[in-house]
């Protein structure tokens, strides 16, 4: 919406509806995700660097930017305080210039996705070629008037967006491969835009080279997995008839396990509420599945005292130690994936009291 309304505002620059829509959607993008800030950065850069756009909406854009900044001020303070707090984001990674080059390589099929090793940074000829072609294409587009504003818009949408993301991520861990999706496709558009800025013969040679490189490295890769299929295979192997109860820890890992292990619990919506994890916990207790974050003997499901054996599925090996006060582990019959651990536990009979 933010991209579209800004474009429409440029087309119908006297029509205030699109300006207001652009303002609202630029707020929306920035409030819904910190990454959405790029929309306002890109708009400002576009207005600043394209003279025809500046002459068209320059003055209005200044007021627009001031109103946008006033509206975003509180959130900006919150974001800035988090960003400068020194606290790292547990879900994000830190980055540097090599990460930037690595992702350019990934987008250009130079490397297998999720294969971030030192070898994947070395021999990065494809990124080097692309980054060398880019400034020449920009210069040619500017001086020969070859749709310069489109090249620039693509450049902001892809390379500059990536670069800013990696600069911010180098300060505070916030790099997430999936957030780069809005840049991954414009970068391909930029590759073609870049080629089209060259004369016919170099364009043909470079295009053929890119295509050959690209197609020879194309492999349909599976999506990321946490290894839940291996976990379920293990659980079913050690507990084929679901004779023993299942412990799942931590609770936030429960949905994908329950989806396969017990879909009735996963889809149980009685009573309907907005807290699905708690719903699953309650429904799970009725089905002899205990979903928890820590083990406290004072707070256990009523059926636990009647059972002496259960299966544990966890991604946290420290949690297993807390169980060993009351239970002892059987020899694992099946080792799970690298993420999950599956164990069978039996109640200790030697415990005093």
């Amino acid at each position, binding site marked *: 919406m933010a*991209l*579209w*309304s*800004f*474009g429409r505002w*440029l*087309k*119908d*620059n*006297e*029509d205030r509806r699109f300006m207001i829509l652009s303002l609202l959607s630029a707020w929306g993008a920035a409030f*819904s*995700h910190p990454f959405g800030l790029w929309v306002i950065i890109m708009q400002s850069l576009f207005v600043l660097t394209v003279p*025809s756009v500046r002459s*068209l909406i320059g003055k209005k854009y200044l007021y627009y930017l001031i109103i946008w900044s006033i509206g975003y001020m509180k959130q900006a303070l919150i974001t800035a305080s988090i960003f400068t707090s020194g606290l790292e984001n547990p879900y994000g990674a830190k980055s540097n210039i090599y990460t930037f080059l690595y992702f350019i390589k*990934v*987008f250009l*099929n130079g490397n*297998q*996705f999720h294969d971030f090793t030192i070898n994947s940074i070395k021999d990065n000829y494809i990124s080097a070629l692309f980054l060398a072609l880019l400034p020449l294409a920009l210069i040619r587009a500017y001086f020969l008037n070859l*749709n310069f*504003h*489109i090249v620039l*818009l693509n450049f902001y*949408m892809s390379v500059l967006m990536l670069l800013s993301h990696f600069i911010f991520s180098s300060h505070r861990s916030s790099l997430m491969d999936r957030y780069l*999706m*809005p840049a*991954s*496709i*414009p970068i*391909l*558009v930029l*590759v*073609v*835009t870049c*080629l*089209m800025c060259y004369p016919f013969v170099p364009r043909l040679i470079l*295009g053929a080279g890119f*295509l050959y490189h*690209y*197609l020879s*490295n*194309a492999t*349909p*890769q*599976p*999506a*990321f*997995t946490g290894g*839940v299929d291996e976990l*379920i295979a293990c659980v079913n192997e050690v507990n084929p008839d679901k004779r023993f109860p299942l412990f799942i820890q931590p609770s936030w*890992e429960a*949905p*994908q396990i329950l*989806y396969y292990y017990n879909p009735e619990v*996963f889809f149980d*919506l009685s009573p*309907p509420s*907005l807290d*699905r994890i708690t719903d699953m916990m309650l429904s799970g207790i009725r089905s002899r599945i205990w979903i928890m974050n820590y083990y406290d003997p004072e707070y256990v499901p009523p059926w636990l005292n009647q059972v002496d054996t259960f299966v544990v599925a966890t991604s946290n090996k420290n949690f297993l130690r807390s169980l060993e006060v009351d239970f002892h582990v059987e020899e694992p019959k099946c080792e799970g994936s690298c993420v999950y651990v599956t164990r069978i536990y039996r109640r200790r009979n030697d415990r005093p009291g």
Partner: protein
Amino acid sequence: MRRANLLKNLDLLDIRNLRPVEIPILVSLLLLAFYWRLCGYMWRAIWLDEAYTLMIASMHHPHHTILFSNLYNTTPGLYELIVYLVGKWVGYKVEYIRLISVFFSSLSTYFVYRALRDWYGTFAGLIGSILFIYQNYSVSFAHEIRNYALLGCFVLWLFGHSGGG
């Protein structure tokens, strides 16, 4: 009213703009994209984020899905709403629900083609769409029950729609 010549009106959804010879080309590209994205789309089980999407999308009412998305999920709930509608229709099996991302990712091929073709001509559209069809990164996210394929599709559509030369 002063009209800017900078950006001309460009409607990427208007297929009447296409020449007859382009229709079979586009259909072939879309089929190729769909076929390539179907390769291995069920190789792996769902992971945490996908389970959360299914969990949010399998609520009693669509407004619960949107509310939960906005309250807990930090992303707007359009994709979850689509999964809700498809799930209520065909069921929440992974093999069906993953096809939503496969569909949107394949559809992006059309927007790549149209944007580049309208900016630079058929040759550019063809090269760009082939590059997109075989981009490993996009294929990976075409296999996920998350909103990334939809996001890519919308970015292309609206970006091309608003930034036409």
